[in-house]
């Protein structure tokens, strides 16, 4: 059986770097990077820390930098890396808690700024919004709502690397979804945040780092570009939002 060299960037429980350690792992059929980490933890070093919940690409907690690319460990097969060894490091642009565990707190601090929850004056309505197939929300949002808040776009963003204040792609994407949401009434407040000079959307340099890295293949750059255009031409902004309700529950 082939063995594989797994190099892991380690830190102690205060997040202080302990350098790189190399482990040898027997390569099993269809083994993912996550499998390799479990194997190292169980058989070689129980002190190794990483996060995992669903292990099938839905929870977004096993994001890490694998051979210099931020991605989900559960969706990355070792055999497909096309490399004799794998180097694993925690996601950049976020504080390290221990080993491969990062804190997503800065990510969610930005996320909260754009008011991610629904703010609807019709929140007590018994009717469901009518959202026809051709409406902007139905057309634009289904794939973009699959965000799993893994932090990968935040880690892959060249602007984010130098600006702690920038909202980052995921938060702006969430704002875009609410702005398109026919039920939502907080567009103005969100636009104020997104328009912010130091933290807002204009910091984006359209480098496509987020789109290239997103494990859910969400076209984040498209979101950012559309939103920028709409903000420059308020008539476009109005077209994004179509209101209407239908009776779906008796």
């Amino acid at each position, binding site marked *: 059986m082939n063995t594989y060299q797994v190099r892991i960037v380690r830190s102690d429980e205060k997040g202080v770097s302990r350098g790189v350690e190399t482990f040898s792992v027997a390569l099993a059929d269809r*083994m993912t990077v996550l499998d390799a980490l479990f194997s190292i933890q169980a058989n070689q070093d129980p002190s190794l820390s990483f996060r995992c919940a669903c292990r099938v690409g839905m929870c977004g907690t096993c994001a890490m930098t694998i051979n210099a690319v931020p991605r989900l460990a559960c969706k990355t097969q070792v055999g497909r890396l096309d490399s004799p060894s794998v180097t694993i490091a925690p996601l950049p642009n976020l504080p390290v808690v221990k080993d491969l565990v990062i804190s997503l707190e800065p990510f969610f601090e930005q996320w909260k700024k754009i008011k991610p929850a*629904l703010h609807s004056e019709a929140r007590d309505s018994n009717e469901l919004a009518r959202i026809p197939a051709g409406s902007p929300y139905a057309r634009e949002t289904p794939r973009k709502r699959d965000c799993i*808040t893994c932090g990968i776009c935040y880690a892959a963003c060249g602007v984010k690397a130098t600006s702690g204040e920038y909202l980052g792609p995921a938060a702006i994407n969430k704002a875009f979804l609410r702005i398109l949401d026919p039920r939502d009434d907080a567009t103005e407040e969100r636009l104020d945040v997104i328009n912010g000079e130091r933290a807002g959307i204009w910091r984006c340099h359209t480098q496509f780092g987020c789109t290239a890295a997103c494990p859910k293949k969400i076209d984040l750059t498209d979101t950012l570009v559309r939103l920028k255009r709409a903000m420059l031409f308020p008539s476009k902004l109005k077209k994004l939002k179509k209101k209407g309700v239908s009776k779906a529950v008796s």
Partner: protein
Amino acid sequence: MSSLPVDTLETDLLILGAGGAGLMAALHARERSPRLKIVIAVKGLLGQSGCTRMVQGGYNAVLNPNDSLERHFFDTIKGGAYLNNQELAWKLVAESPRRIVELENIVGCVFDRNPDGTIHQKPFAGQSFDRTVHKGDLTGIEIMSNLRDYVLESDMQVLQECRGLDLLKDDGRVCGALLLHIRSGRLVAVRAKATLAATGGGATMYRISSPSLEKAGDGIAMARRAGARLVDMEMLQFHPTGLLVGKSVATGGLLEEGLRGAGARLYNGLGERYMERYDPEKKERATRDVVSRSSYMEIMAGRGTPHGGVYIDASHLGEKFLLANFPGMVERCADYGFDLLRDRVEVSPSAHFQMGGMQIDAECRSSLDGLFAAGEDAGGVHGANRLGGNGVAESIVFGGCAGDSMAEYVQGREVPAVSPAHVRALTELWARPLARDSGEIPFGLRKELEDVMWEKVGVIRNGPDLKAALGALAELRARAERVKAPGAPASNAAWNAALDFVNLCEVGRMVAESALIRTESRGAHYRQDFPSSDPQWLKNIVLTPRENEFDVHFEPVRFTRLSPPESSGALTHGHDLRSH
């Protein structure tokens, strides 16, 4: 023994678990009484932990005028082989439509629409109407992301990566819980006027299983130790189509039910469409218990695939249809090197959902004062088998119910006192692995437990195997007393594995004990030595913990709304199975 530092916290409501049930409880309590203090403890990250997040197919609700609550109720009871608590099942069905409206209008979800903009509902196995609401084939992400955002904008206190160790008690009443903050290694004693257990079930104790890996039946195990009554513990559901991905932890991850609903077929290793033999009428659209058992019989008879499963084939549905309707499933297969669009894919029954749990009333109250349960921590709603799409509906409906009833319960109550000696004793108990110099490291134990449960308490059971399993489980539990978890308490994976292991052993023991008692086959529980359903067994097995043992009693099912058909034949799947 040097004691670990224990922080303290006081609150009105303590919610253990932050899947659909936990967060919906938080939301309902907040909407009802905005000034309540709410503490949510979640074992992983907020909104990114547990199984609601993993829901693929969707949420059953009667929304179409041509459908009816009675039909949904009938499907649920029939699917549950008449073992359900009918008042709980009725509540599920009756409140489910209203909660969909809340999920959209208050929480902010949007489920898929028909071309005209009205809500779309798709077919699911075991149902007489297309009533499953969904967001593509990844419905759980839509629900959990939006619930998370609601909580983020509230002032609730969220303790992330914080697990329950034990419930705190005073004079028979539950008054909070002792928690472990996994990253810091610090303990937190939370005193609460009301406590909700919504941590999820223990299906992860099986070799092939679908749930999120951090789940370990913590709530049910803590309830057992606190003395709460448990019901239907023998009823554990196997989903028919868990992916087989070699030794990868991805094994057991599901391909959703909607695929079979849409016409995907199952074949054995010989290429036979075996469901034609087991259920000629419904074939692949039979309920989960029937399909899982049929697949298992094929595999055991030596007609399995090279990796010990069966094949699911969706290729005849066409690439365009699959990409439009099941993009998440196509992607999941591709991640592990399988082609759902063009090839057969190897799948196996996968331990999925715990129907049993704490006995609750229609207000989500457990048998212990101050303790509430919802989601998989509670039993009774689904009887002997759960319909696809009723799981997330249960979490949302009963989570909401628990939030309402806890908000009501805490009115006029004081934060209860907890004896420091009680906290100290529990702290010392759970910290033992940290102090041991010798002993096993617990990672390997989990594998042994999974094998025992899979082989002896699995899809097909019998008396001698169950007895052997109980012996093996007692031994494993004893070994758990001697494990070591070297290193600091912060981020200590071995310690956490040991804590999970103890809980899974306890839940596993209850499953095996109840399975041994039920000498018939019904729903998900199939006994080789008692292959038929027996009308005498239309009763629930209730376990009341006494120290380390259980008092067992039986409660006849109360057919308050629907009686089973006269002949027991309608209930049995034994006949089909024995003929092959």
